[in-house]
């Protein structure tokens, strides 16, 4: 069962080939068997999953059901789940039993999804390798000496190892797409505002967006249909109609204009990675798409702009973790300042503290204009670049990540090098656009991903492009040997 996509499992449940309980037990068994090594899940909610599966079976027996009835899903541990620890990968929230449930989780449950557990992640989603997690690094199923990427590295690894058929992720600067690329799975970051942020622990509020991660574009389309929509509880969620993503999948690509920015294929890029994406472009050309060379000159400043805006917002978002109402509190504080300083310093890991310090500095008196304000100005330039491009093309494509999965520990002492892992994904978050990463080949036995970026609310279009590509290729069906 674990080699099937979510879409296939859905059909199997509908045809009564197996029950949701059987399906759920199967994945729970695989988790027990493999996750000790992989470390892709922080919490497994076995009892709850089986209860949900039984309820789903009852629903299906009545001939009813929603988009995801009876289908197992693993949620990133950044989404609050009532009664279940929600750690955000941090010691700060190691003892945090969420008192409420995130909209994303609620909406998927309302469509009948069965929650298997909570996936490992970089602490507070700050990282590109999953090494900043308080719960230890996640291993890449394709080579367990390597990282799965981050911050939704647990989600990507657990999918690649077929320990779950579906997962949720969040993406602030590439945290869905980069790990999807490094694990050979498909991940979609929707338009900013497409999916509610209520209950998703904030990293950088103006960039964070939740999205689906799966084994195919079709699986992501199925999940997005359940996740998307306006939420009164999130002021930044938009009141746009949710598309019929499954229906859009099969449109042909005749006349599709694909923008190919020169900035996504710099001379310094690994030739094999560039070739993987160029090969994907050729496949789409075969299906009737036209390639349009273009330039996005401002995106070269996206990494510096991001590393001001994201830490600035984070420094403020993470101020609520003060040891007073929930979360880690130091022992025997001598006074208020001691309570704050020790609780926070013990609760947060090094990378989180570093980003808080950078963000605090960037917002502090005298530096606001030089850093924060300027970064927001550059942000507009980047958005305008994309707007100009989308006047000419339907989608924009290039490699998702400039590199394949690197060795665990290789970059921990070199944050700048680590930040560059997101060079192709970050601009999309700054502009708020939707983008997807799909598997497009292997380099030295490690998966490579290609990114498809769409205009605002064009999730249906980019899922369509990826789906058509996946109909013609089988990269997304490859399973790492140890987990077959």
């Amino acid at each position, binding site marked *: 069962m674990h080699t099937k996509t979510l879409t296939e499992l859905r059909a199997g449940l509908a045809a009564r080939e197996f029950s949701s309980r059987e399906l759920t037990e199967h994945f729970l068994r695989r988790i027990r068997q493999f996750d000790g090594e992989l470390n892709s899940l922080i919490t497994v909610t076995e009892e709850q999953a089986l209860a949900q599966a039984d309820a789903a079976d009852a629903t299906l027996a009545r001939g009813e059901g929603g988009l995801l009835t009876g289908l197992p899903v693993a949620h990133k541990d950044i989404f609050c789940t009532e009664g279940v620890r929600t750690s955000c990968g941090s010691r700060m929230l190691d003892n945090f039993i*969420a008192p*409420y449930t995130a909209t994303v989780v609620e909406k998927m449950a309302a469509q009948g999804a069965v929650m298997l557990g909570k996936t490992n992640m970089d602490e507070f989603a700050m990282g590109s390798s999953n090494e900043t997690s308080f719960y230890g690094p996640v291993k890449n199923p394709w080579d367990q000496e390597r990282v799965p990427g981050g911050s939704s590295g647990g989600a990507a690894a657990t999918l690649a190892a077929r320990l779950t058929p579906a997962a949720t992720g969040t993406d602030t600067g590439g945290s869905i797409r980069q790990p999807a690329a490094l694990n050979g799975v498909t991940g979609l970051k929707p338009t900013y505002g497409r999916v509610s942020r209520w209950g998703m622990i904030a990293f950088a509020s103006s960039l964070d967006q939740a999205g689906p991660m799966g084994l195919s574009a079709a699986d992501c389309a199925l999940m997005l249909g359940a996740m998307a929509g306006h939420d009164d509880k999130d002021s*930044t969620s938009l009141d746009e109609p949710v598309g019929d993503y499954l229906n859009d999948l099969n449109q042909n690509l005749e006349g599709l204009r694909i923008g190919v920015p020169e900035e996504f294929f710099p001379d310094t890029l690994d030739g094999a990675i560039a070739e993987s994406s160029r090969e994907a472009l050729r496949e789409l050309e075969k299906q009737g798409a036209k390639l349009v060379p273009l330039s996005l000159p401002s995106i070269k400043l996206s990494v510096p702009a991001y590393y001001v805006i994201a830490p600035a917002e984070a*420094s403020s978002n993470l*101020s609520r973790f003060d040891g007073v109402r929930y979360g880690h509190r130091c022992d025997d504080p001598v006074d208020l300042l001691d309570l704050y300083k020790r609780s926070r310093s013990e609760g947060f890991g090094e990378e989180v503290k570093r980003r808080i310090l950078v963000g605090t500095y960037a*917002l502090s008196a005298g530096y606001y204009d030089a850093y924060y304000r300027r970064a927001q100005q550059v942000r507009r330039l980047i958005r305008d670049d994309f707007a100009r491009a989308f006047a000419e093309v339907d989608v924009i494509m290039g490699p998702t990540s400039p590199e394949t999965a690197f060795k665990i520990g290789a970059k921990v002492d070199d944050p700048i090098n680590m930040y560059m892992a997101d060079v192709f994904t970050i601009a999309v978050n700054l502009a708020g656009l939707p983008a997807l990463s799909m598997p497009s080949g292997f380099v030295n036995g490690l998966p490579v991903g290609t990114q498809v970026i769409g205009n605002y609310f064009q999730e249906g279009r980019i899922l369509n492009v990826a789906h058509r590509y996946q109909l013609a290729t089988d990269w997304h069906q490859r399973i790492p040997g140890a987990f077959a």
Partner: protein
Amino acid sequence: MSWETVIGLEVHVQLATASKLFSASSTRTGDEPNSNASLIDLAMPGTLPVVNREAIRHAIRFGLAIDAEIGRRSVFERKNYFYPDLPKGYQTTQLAEPIVGAGVVDLQLEDGTRKSVRIHHAHLEEDAGKSLHEAFSDETGRAMTGIDLNRAGTPLIEIVSEPDMSNAEEAVAFARKLHAIVTSLGISDGDMSQGNMRFDVNISVRRPGEPLGTRTETKNLNSFRFMEKAIKLEVERQIDVLENGGEVVQETRLYNGETNTARAMRSKEDANDYRYFPCPDLLPVLVSEEEINELRDALPELPDARKARFVEAYALSEYDAELLCADLATAAYFEAAAKQGGDAKLAANWVMGELTARLNADDIGIAQSPVSAEHLGELIQRIKDGTISSKIAKQVFDACWAGEGSPDQIIESKGLKQMSDTGELEKIVDDIIANHPAQVEDYRGSDDAKRKKKIGFFVGQAMKATQGKANPQQLNQLLQQKLNG
């Protein structure tokens, strides 16, 4: 050489909404600690704010009342600092683009002069929770502070004046006027005892013609009386410091009304870099022309208009009218009493005199007055129709204050009706004359000027005998008639 005082005010006004600024939890006070603190107010991870429309509309109403430009686009920002009553670690407020721009408030001072105080801007923000310092301790017995977040997130407008006031009286007049405006608008109950209207006063002194001196901020003054005293105290202190060759230190000071002393605050002193930036969880608030016009058309009568109407309709002095319009409740009370009593001047005198004195003495607001406007109106009627004298009226007022019934009931049950039967009074006067031959002889032996004084004795005796119920005019006439013979 003399000193000039420069005063500016920052006034926090709690808006009268049912729910909080960014969450749908109740703004009610007096409930169990944290029972009105939602997941949002508690700053649970993953929670997000949504703006209360009525809070925006209240702020616009205030802006329209002071002729200010309304921010067609306003932006919420985060003011970052750590404090236990601030659960998110930042206060959501407005800075660069507030909802209310520059405006002006006109004052009528006691000496008859007028003054305009410019408003720099007014912005919307959320209130903090409360720190309770009493009776908490940890397991080792160490003193702790308890945090109640029921108030956290309650909507406020902060009104920031220009430093246009030059003494405590002007500052108090300005504060009173703001109180009158916000209560007339119905956007706040203005209840200072509950901290629903609080004043922070920025004070500096300088020699005439010199640049502004270093200012201090005295925080959280919650009565006009304390505000006046605190300003006087701080001005004296600053002058004292400067005249002794010292320097005024820029600091935040806390005033203690009970002891009439103030001291520099110890906490928050290093939280001076607030790192404001636009709140990324909220979008710009846009206000349409239609909405502004709709709110303008629906504005209730404002204090200045009401004052003009009082002067015109009730022939009151400007100053009396200003005082009566100091808040909506007082104005409404006066109008009701005047209408029922049929004498505006008398009603004004009673409201500003006896009633205000009693309210102040018992430290309660006019809304809590045991003597209702209807009662006072009835009392005035009885004075006007000669049923009771002004002197007896005070006695009736006291009984009414003590809850002994309506004025008519009290007059009836205590038999306080003025004696109108001339025969009965004549008999009492005759008795008094007969019983005090020495005084009668003395009176009759005096000239007119002395007689005027000496008749007082007989009036007193008669009042005593009638328990004050004699009509003074009638009595005087009768006595003169009998004594002068």
